[in-house]
């Protein structure tokens, strides 16, 4: 598969952006500047980036409690995200949603759902709407391994299959749902096998290889745009941090953590790009630096943004 140089570099940049955003967010959270719960995507960047590299701004995604990566990969601005995490008016949701719930209809982010599995039928509904409106939009539904155990996963995928809708289910199999291994709660070795129960294609890919994700999702998106219906892509990955910030991760065997640390998708892709001559070492460094500056500015933007006025409590309840 031939991928344009600019595209490859952009994929790298977005992965670095997600990582740097979360590194900063984790620091500010520890310093008490960001309230609430924080679920980091660190280690799983290749999934969101490889997926969203196939999309245009008017395609839809639904996100989860671990949503920063999805939002950034779909084109979300780190300054407005940061402001949301700080609970400020300039945030994507005016400070009403927080880290778990960033939404921006302008770039097709229908919302992020803190209740596991909620996004699944909602993505199906967005695909239904795209089909009825006769656009070639697709809907991407990001979900965790744990979410495949919820009832709405099965109901949502089945409905999408029956209606032949342009929706792709991206299972981010990061081995765990909170402290619980997926192998303890599901007896399938590959979650992609769940697809056959609904008569749709399902594939498992190496989720830390951004190009493998890009290619597999690309095929599913192309099918969906042609009216050939839904598909499921399982991306095997690993969250390198706790379920939430503050989680001691006692349930992870140290060898397992080490093994996955070595498979970190970002150094891996960087090495690949340099080896292929797409990027020179110093270009990569410049990108890393630019992103660091962007994130510093995002924090400044968030800090300088005003707090919501108290009356804001009562607004936005109904249309």
């Amino acid at each position, binding site marked *: 598969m031939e991928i344009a140089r600019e595209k490859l570099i952009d994929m790298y940049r977005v992965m670095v952006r997600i990582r740097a955003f979360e590194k900063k967010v984790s620091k500010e959270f520890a310093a008490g500047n960001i309230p609430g*719960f924080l679920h980091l995507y660190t280690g799983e960047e290749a999934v969101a980036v490889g997926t969203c590299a196939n999309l245009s701004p008017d395609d839809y995604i639904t996100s989860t409690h671990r949503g920063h990566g999805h939002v950034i990969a779909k084109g979300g601005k780190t300054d407005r995200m940061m402001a949301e995490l700080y*609970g400020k008016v300039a945030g994507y*949701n005016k400070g009403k949603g927080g880290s778990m719930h960033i939404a921006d209809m302008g770039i097709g982010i229908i919302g992020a759902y803190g209740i596991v599995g909620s996004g699944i039928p909602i993505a199906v509904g967005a695909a239904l709407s795209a089909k009825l409106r006769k656009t070639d939009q697709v809907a991407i539904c990001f979900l965790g391994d744990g979410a495949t155990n919820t009832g709405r996963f099965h109901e949502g995928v089945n409905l999408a299959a029956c209606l032949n809708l342009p929706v792709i289910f991206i299972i981010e199999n990061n081995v765990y749902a*909170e*402290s619980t291994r997926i192998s303890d709660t*599901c007896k399938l070795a590959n979650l992609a096998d769940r697809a056959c129960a609904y008569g749709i294609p399902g594939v498992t890919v190496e989720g830390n290889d951004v190009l493998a994700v890009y290619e597999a999702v690309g095929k599913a998106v192309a099918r969906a745009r042609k009216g050939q219906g839904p598909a499921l892509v399982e991306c095997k990955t690993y969250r390198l941090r706790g379920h939430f910030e503050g989680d001691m991760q006692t*349930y992870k065997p140290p060898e397992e953590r080490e093994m996955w640390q070595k498979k970190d998708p970002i150094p891996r892709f960087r090495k690949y790009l340099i080896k292929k001559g797409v990027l020179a070492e110093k270009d990569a460094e410049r990108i890393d630096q630019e992103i660091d500056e962007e994130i510093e500015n995002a924090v400044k933007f968030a800090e300088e943004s005003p*707090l*919501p006025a108290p009356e804001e409590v*009562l607004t936005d309840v109904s249309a």
Partner: protein
Amino acid sequence: MKETTFLQAVNEALFEEMERDPNVILLGEDVRIWGAPRGEFKGLFDKYGPERVIDTPISETAILGGAIGAAATGMRPIANIMYSSFLGVCGDELINHLTQTRYMSGGKIKLPVTIMSYFGAGFSAGAHHSSSLHGLLVSIPALKVVVPSTPYDAKGLLKSAIRDDNPTIFLSHQMLMRRSLKDPIPDEEYTIPLGKADVKREGSDVTVVATVLMVHRALSAAEKLEEKGISIEIIDPRTLVPLDKQAIIDSVKKTGRLVVMTEEPSTGSAASTLSAIIAEEAFDFLDAPIKRINAPDTPVPFSPILEKVWMPDEEDLIAAVTEMI
């Protein structure tokens, strides 16, 4: 006597009840390693094993549905639904089965299920991890709603909830998990009956019925009101269903004024139901209209500044009480 936190009190109650009755089983997510949301189930798996302490997939529907089936056939299950908002996932089990099966079976089926769940704002967790559904829960016939405000009450009430032959929901507030909130708890066993209120502070001018975190806010408001020469009596019903009407009526007879302070949107709230009951049954003793102090009719906002506005607090109570007399 031992100084005990809310979490420890809950944990002790669970150990005691699992020891006492081999039919008590626990179903929930992450109960094995984490001891579930905040560690209240810690140690139970090691002691009682995977048959009685069951780590489930993310399947609230299967947790509560499974609890119903097990209860109907002789078990006494505890179903852990991490946050009240997630009750939406098993709404059918909660609304149509857990609480209607006994009636619809002509009294033949008994469902001694205890749901344990968290709610409560103050943590900037956003609406999906903060909402209180008290109004909805009290409106479900046959569901007992247990709302402890202290470690001591939590332990005694949870034990009674587990022993109760009816469906109960035991709701803990996230903000009461702090380590500084401790009660001396007796070494010997005790239970607290469901449906018995507790006077958290005696007073003479205004009766304040408060629940959960609001009890603590009312207690601190009481100090400030006392400086102004106003004395409030704080009644904690401890269970919203069954409701200890008599304790509230007795207090209103003395004070002639009632404020109901709960953390929930106002319309359709448990506070509204309670106010209506007192208005009907104790109108003659009231010298002023009943006041409710609740949250606005909105979801819980994330931003700390908005969340603070959303939550009822000391100032709201002080203003309401001062205006009343």
